[in-house]
């Protein structure tokens, strides 16, 4: 048992984004969330992280309502990679990455290993604000890896990464799943979704949602329904993508 969502609804203003979603996130799975801009992907991740209350429904972790958990306890199990905003961080890359260990107290163990894994060892002493967008994204990912949550929620983690680092991130997501953790990520490229996700959740932004395997959901028609005209052609052209 892991994170369970029952009858969850999300609204923005008077609009219903997601209506009565039921989902049990399994240990060892990578779940991809796809949807057009503004369909509610980030909002859903925020609710799954226990940082916002849904309009209706409930989210439980191992049977416990998420909002009943103390913040630090919750952070020991669930990690969130929000879309980037580190404008106010004044320290070094190493300081930034080490903050991932905050929920557990004390200094971060294996910091050097995590920095090396995300190719940040040479940048460790640089101020964070001197890094490029892609390097900064790697620092965010390393921070999440230091937190080592058993449920990792990543909002558009491929942003700013070059193709090699995108592939590395998706390989990391798989290795997390292999270790029995659950990974949820929002992404836009159906080819990556086909290759790296065990299940997909389509959010149509009007309350409607679809949950299934990539083989079930990734069809030209369903993509057109999700993203609008033209997207089916994009999928066919890129249908050659292989797992990395």
């Amino acid at each position, binding site marked *: 048992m892991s994170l369970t969502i029952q009858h969850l609804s999300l609204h923005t203003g008077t609009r219903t984004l997601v209506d009565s979603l039921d989902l049990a996130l399994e240990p060892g799975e990578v779940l991809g969330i796809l949807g057009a801009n503004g369909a509610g992907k980030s909002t859903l991740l925020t609710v799954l*992280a226990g940082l916002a209350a849904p309009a209706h429904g409930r989210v439980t972790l191992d049977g416990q309502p998420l909002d009943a958990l103390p913040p630090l306890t919750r952070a020991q199990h669930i990690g969130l990679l929000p879309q980037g905003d*580190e*404008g*106010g961080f*004044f320290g070094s890359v190493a300081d930034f990455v080490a903050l991932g260990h*905050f929920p557990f107290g004390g200094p971060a163990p294996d910091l050097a290993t995590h920095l090396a894994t995300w190719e940040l060892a040479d940048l460790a002493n640089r101020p964070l604000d001197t890094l490029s967008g892609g390097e900064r994204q790697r620092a965010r990912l390393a921070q999440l890896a230091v937190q080592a949550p058993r449920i990792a929620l990543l909002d558009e983690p491929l942003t700013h990464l070059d193709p090699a680092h995108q592939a590395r991130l998706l390989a990391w997501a798989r290795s997390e799943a292999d270790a029995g953790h659950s990974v949820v990520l929002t992404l836009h490229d159906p080819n990556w979704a086909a290759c790296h996700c065990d299940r997909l959740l389509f959010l149509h932004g009007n309350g409607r949602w679809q949950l299934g395997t990539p083989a079930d959901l990734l069809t030209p028609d369903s993509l057109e329904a999700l993203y609008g005209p033209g997207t089916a052609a994009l999928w066919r052209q890129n249908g050659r993508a292989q797992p990395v």
Partner: protein
Amino acid sequence: MAGTLPDDRELAMQILAELRAPRVAAAFACGGLLALAGALMQTLFRNPLAEPYLLGVSGGAGLLALLGMAAGLAWPWVSALAFAGSLLALALAAALGGRLLARDHTPLLLAGVMLAAGFGALIALVLSVTPAERLPGMLFFLMGDLAWTSQPALLWAALLLAVAAALALSRRLDVLQLSPLKAASLGVAVAPTRWALFALAGACTALVVAQAGSIGFVGLMVPHALRKLGFAGHRVLLPVCALAGGSLLVLADALARTVIEPRELPVGVLTALLGVPMMLWLLRKP
């Protein structure tokens, strides 16, 4: 000669014990409190240009203090009015802009900037209708002057308490530099921690303003410079800020008392004169 030496010595000791030492002690505590408040404000607003007076504290204090002076009140009452003015500014900023503090600090920042502008206009109004003979005292208060400080023990107690409170928050403050959403996902209760920061920085500033007027620049420059020099983690940054801010103000006050002896300059003038070149030099660092 031999007969006068003990008297001179006695007088010198008396001056040292009753005038100089308390003033140096007060200067150190004021500088420490201002630098600490500045560091806390920079973390609260995630902006290295934030400073203790950002929320209109000096304006609120200045307005009420000047009204007290215009009415001919004695210093303790003026000091009490300055303290009340600071708290009034903080309360107004919190009431007008604090509703979304868990997610967004911009409304609080805007409310503070607007209040500071409003108080500034009212201060200008009071100055423009005040008889000329009362103006020097008012201007010294507005520029910051340690000649009025009478309670170094109170300031030191506040400094020690504030450093202890800030240290207790220090690990959370490191995380609070991240976006509110990320900080919350790491287990920090963002809204209560931000309000604690607001209250602590506000109390430090209000106390100093009530004792010594609006001494500028220490609260902006000291934490900013220390961050530039590599003090990033709050556990070290905050106590070092208190030490460096205190030292800077002691130095500035010593110069303020001596450069054009026997007259004194407002210490705020010296903090800026010392701080601006130092800051400009630091900005050249890559």
